[in-house]
């Protein structure tokens, strides 16, 4: 592998070997691709919830509509929290690539804190709405709203728990291959939550004018 192949670069050899005769992809690639497929199917679930919301958004049954209920300032802060947490999550994955444990903890802590702020603001909003007799049982619009936004919030909560578990694994097991693979999946999961949230704030909160 050292001097005999000096004439043919590795890329050329790659091209000469038929795809069917190459060995299996590395476990990192298989795990990453599999998790990518899971994320896409998760986004299909959200697609169904978005469709339900789009159909039911105008069916308020005489109850309050989105314009009366939503506070756009809060939503902007929530959005910025999620965006910043996606950024710190990216820095965390760079620290993981360099096997730098202190920086990994630091950026994971930032990500966790921002995610916790987001979920705290969302729970406060939900409690406030339910207190104003605008809970999920009030109208079809509110059922669809709580299902869609609540499912996203549930995903964020699961992501927070996953962060805590993974940091414990880094502390106890170190950066072994399996742990690094799980961390890769976790960072992908976190970025996917952000993509879904873009749809949520555009369609649910900003779209409330156009129901």
């Amino acid at each position: 592998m050292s001097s005999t192949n000096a004439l043919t670069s590795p890329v050329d050899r790659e091209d000469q070997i038929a795809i069917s005769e190459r060995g299996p992809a590395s476990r990192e690639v298989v795990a990453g691709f599999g998790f990518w497929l899971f994320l896409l199917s998760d986004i299909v679930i959200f697609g169904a919830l978005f469709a339900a919301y789009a159909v039911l958004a105008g069916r308020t049954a005489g109850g309050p509509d989105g314009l009366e209920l939503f506070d756009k300032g809060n939503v902007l802060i929530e959005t910025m929290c999620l965006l910043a947490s996606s950024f710190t999550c990216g820095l965390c994955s760079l620290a993981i690539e360099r096997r730098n444990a202190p920086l990994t903890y630091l950026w994971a802590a930032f990500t966790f804190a921002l995610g916790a702020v987001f979920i705290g603001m969302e729970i406060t909003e939900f409690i406030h709405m339910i207190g104003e007799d605008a809970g999920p049982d009030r109208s079809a619009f509110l059922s669809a709203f709580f299902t869609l936004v609540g499912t996203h919030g549930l995903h964020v909560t699961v992501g927070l728990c996953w962060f805590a578990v993974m940091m414990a694994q880094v502390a106890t097991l170190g950066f072994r291959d399996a742990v690094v693979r799980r961390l890769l999946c976790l960072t992908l999961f976190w970025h996917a939550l952000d993509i879904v949230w873009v749809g949520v704030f555009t369609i649910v909160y900003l779209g409330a004018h156009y129901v």
Partner: protein
Amino acid sequence: MSDPVPQEAAVQDRAPGTVHNERGSVITYLAGLGFAVVLTLASFWASDSHAVWAPAVPILLAVLAVGQMGVHVVFFFHISSGPDDTNNFLALAFGIFVVALVVFGSILIMSNLNANMMPMDQLMQMQR
């Protein structure tokens, strides 16, 4: 620099969210954050301001949202159309296809049913 072969061998496939050259990745995430923040602020501004012709605002919001999702896919997931990314890219394309079918199909079918439904007062009369 002792063994360049294992690094190059990774050309055949790549997991989403990983990059080959580690340098510049911080720049990539910073750029992603910058684009995302700008697009978010533009969305919130467009929904409030009267500078944009009102009937065009929903379309503008949709364009900004799709653009921001694209920014996330490129800068955070590092999905490209390169040869080492074919599987990830095709999976993404299929995912978008299914989501579009579900969302637009549901809206189309439900609005069609709604338009063809008998008005409520006539329906009540028939039930008597």
